[in-house]
C-alpha cells in the first residue's frame, strides 16, 4: 500500500539553468572519481562516502533554493555532491578533504563534515539523523524572524529508521515549520537493503503518519527533483509547513571506501547506469538543441582538467599549524 504521491509533471528549466546543472553534475562526478584515487594513493585519509549516481538530487535541490535569502541545508556524510552543488569552493573543498589549512574548516572536519554558511550549508552530518532536528532549528529561526527562508535536510533511506528522524518530522509538522525533508533512497542503508530494514514500500509513505505531504520523485532526473523541491520550498515560504520528499536513486559505489558492495544483485548496477543522471539531462539538452554531444564531451574534459588542477593545488597546500588543534573550541 502506498500513501505517498508520485510527481507527475516535471518542469522544463531554461537552457542556462540546465547548463549549470549539467556542469555541476560533471564536476561532482569527476571530483568523486579523483577522490577515490586520492584515497587509494593515501593522499586523503580517514573514510569517504561517494555519491556518484546521485548527482541529480544534489543539483535539483540546489537549483530550487536560495541561500542568499537565508535558505539552509543539512545533509549526511554522503555530502560531497550537495556541498559542491550549493557552490562550496572547489579548492576549499579539496583542501579540507586533505586536512589542509586552506580547507573550508581548516582541516578540522574532513570528508564527512563540511560546513559553509556562505552557501547555506550548515553541515554534512556524520551521525545518522543528526541533521533533521538542526534543520528544524534553522526553520524555526526563519519562521520567528519571518524571513520566508526554508531549511532542507537531506538524508538516506537508512536514516528513516532512527528516532531523531521521527522526532524531527513530528515537531516540524506540529509547528508547521518551513522544513523540507529530502530522502535519497539509494536502496541501501550501509550494507543492508531497504526492504530488509523498513516495513513500508516507500519512505515517503511515512509522511501520512505526520499529516504532511509525501512525494516520490525520480532521483535520476534533475528537473524532476527540482520540480518537487521547488513545490516544497513554496509551501514552506508561505507557512504551509514541511514536506517529505523521496528521491529514488542509486549509489554506483559501495557505502564507504572499504565496501565493494558484494551484496548487490547481478545486473542491478547496470540497470541504474542505463539511467545515469548526467546522461538523462545531457540527452534532453541535445534533443532540445541546447548542446551537442561534442560540447558535452568538451565540458567533461574541461571539468576533469579543473579537478586535476585543484587537486594539485590542494596537495601543495600546507597543513594547519599544530597550535590550531586547540583553536575553535570556544567563541
Amino acid at each position, binding site marked *: 500500500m502506498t500513501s505517498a504521491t508520485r510527481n507527475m509533471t516535471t518542469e522544463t528549466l531554461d537552457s542556462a539553468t540546465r547548463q549549470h546543472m549539467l556542469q555541476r553534475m560533471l564536476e561532482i562526478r569527476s571530483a568523486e572519481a579523483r577522490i577515490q584515487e586520492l584515497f587509494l594513493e593515501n593522499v586523503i585519509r580517514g573514510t569517504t562516502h561517494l555519491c556518484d549516481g546521485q548527482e541529480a538530487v544534489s543539483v535539483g535541490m540546489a537549483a530550487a533554493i536560495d541561500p542568499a535569502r537565508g535558505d539552509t541545508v543539512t545533509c549526511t556524510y554522503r555530502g560531497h555532491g550537495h556541498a559542491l552543488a550549493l557552490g562550496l569552493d572547489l579548492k576549499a573543498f579539496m583542501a579540507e578533504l586533505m586536512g589542509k589549512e586552506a580547507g573550508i574548516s581548516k582541516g578540522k572536519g574532513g570528508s564527512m*563534515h563540511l*560546513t559553509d554558511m556562505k552557501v547555506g550549508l550548515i553541515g554534512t552530518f556524520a*551521525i545518522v539523523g543528526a541533521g533533521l532536528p538542526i534543520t528544524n532549528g534553522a526553520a524555526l529561526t526563519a519562521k520567528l524572524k519571518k524571513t520566508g527562508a526554508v531549511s532542507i535536510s537531506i538524508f538516506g533511506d537508512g536514516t528513516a529508521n532512527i528516532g531523531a528522524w521521527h522526532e524531527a518530522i513530528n515537531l516540524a509538522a506540529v509547528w508547521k515549520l518551513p522544513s523540507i525533508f529530502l530522502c535519497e533512497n539509494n536502496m541501501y542503508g550501509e550494507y543492508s537493503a531497504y526492504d530488509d530494514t523498513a516495513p513500508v514500500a516507500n519512505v515517503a509513505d511515512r509522511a501520512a503518519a505526520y499529516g504532511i505531504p509525501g512525494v516520490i520523485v525520480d532521483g535520476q532526473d534533475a528537473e524532476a527533483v527540482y520540480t518537487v523541491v521547488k513545490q516544497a520550498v513554496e509551501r514552506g515560504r508561505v507557512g504551509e509547513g514541511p514536506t517529505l520528499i523521496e528521491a529514488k536513486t542509486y549509489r554506483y559505489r559501495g557505502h564507504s571506501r572499504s565496501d565493494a558492495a558484494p551484496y548487490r544483485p547481478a545486473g542491478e548496477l547496470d540497470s541504474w547506469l542505463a539511467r545515469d543522471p548526467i546522461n538523462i539531462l545531457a540527452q534532453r539538452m541535445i534533443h532540445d538543441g541546447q548542446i551537442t554531444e561534442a560540447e558535452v564531451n568538451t565540458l567533461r574534459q574541461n571539468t576533469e582538467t579543473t579537478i586535476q588542477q585543484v587537486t594539485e593545488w590542494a596537495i601543495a597546500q600546507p597543513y594547519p599549524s599544530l597550535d590550531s588543534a586547540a583553536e575553535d573550541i570556544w567563541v
Partner: protein
Amino acid sequence: MAIITYRDAILRALDEEMDRDANVIFLGEDVGRAGGVFKVTPGLYEKYGPERVLDTPISETAIIGAGVGAAITGMRPVAELMFVDFAAVALDQIVNQAAKLRYMSGGQLKIPLTIRAAQGGGVGFASQHSQCLETWFMHAPGLKVVVPSNPADALGLLKTAIRDDNPVIFLEHKLQYTEKGEVPDGEHLVPFGVANVVREGTDVTIIATQRMVIVALKAAAELAKQGISCEVIDPRTLVPLDMETIIGSVKKTGRLITVEEAVHAGGWGGEVVSLVTDEAIWYLESPVVRVTLGAGLVPFSQPLEDHVLPNPERVMAAVHRVMET
C-alpha cells in the same frame, strides 16, 4: 536586596533576558502553558507568547536539535530538558553536535544555546531521575557547565549563560527550588570561572557545589565549635573552573576535601585533586579526601536515599580524617 527563591531567581533571569533580547526564545516540554513541571517558568508564555515560549512534544532530541539549529542561525535559545537524566536520550545533539560543531566547522559556527535541566536526589525519584551528571558534560569540550548553589548565583549565572556565545549546560538542583536567598536589585550578572569563597577558614579547604555547599556549610559550622576552621569554596562553574582560587586556598590551609553529590569514579572532585597536585602538592599536609555518592546508585526508599547522599556528618568525618594526619 530582595529575598526570593532559587526557582524565582531562574524565572527572573529568563524574564529579564527575554525582555532585553528578542532573539532569546525558550522551548521544552510543558514549559509554556503549564509553567514547567517544576513550576519554574509560570507567566512567560502569557508575557512573551507562543512564538517565543514553545511547548514541545516529548522529544528531547528534537528539542535540543531545534535549539542547536536556531542558535546557529541567530537566535539565543534556552532549551529545557526537565530532568537532566533525559540528556541520555539526547546526548548526540548535546555532545556530538552542540559541543563540537564550532570546532568541526573550523570556527564557522557559533551555538549560543543554553540547556537548562534539574538534577540531584533527595526527593524519592529513584535512580533515573536523581542523578547529578555535571561530570558527563565536562567531558565534552565545547560545553560550559554551570552549577548554581543559591538564588543570587542562579539569577546572575543564567543571565550570563544566555549571553554567552557557547553552548552552556545550566544545572539546577531540584531540591533547592524552594530555598530562599538575597538577590541584588537591578542588573545582576555573575561571570563564569570565578569561584565564590562562601566561608573563609584556615585549616581545611572544602570544595562543594549546589546543595553540597549547604551540606559543607553545616559541617563547617559544627567544626568551628570544635576549633576547626574550614574554608568553603563554591566553584559555581565547573567549565570554566577557577583553579586559581582553589589552589590559593589549598596553599593557605594545606588540606583539601571535595564534596560531590555524584558517583565517585570520574567525578569533578578527582579533576580538582589532580590539578591541585600538579600545582601545589608540596603544600598538602595530609591526604585529600573526596566525599561522594560512592560507588552506587540513588535508591528509592527514603532511609536508603538518605544513607547514600552526602550529609554534614560525612563531611565532618572527612575533615577529622585529614586533620588527624
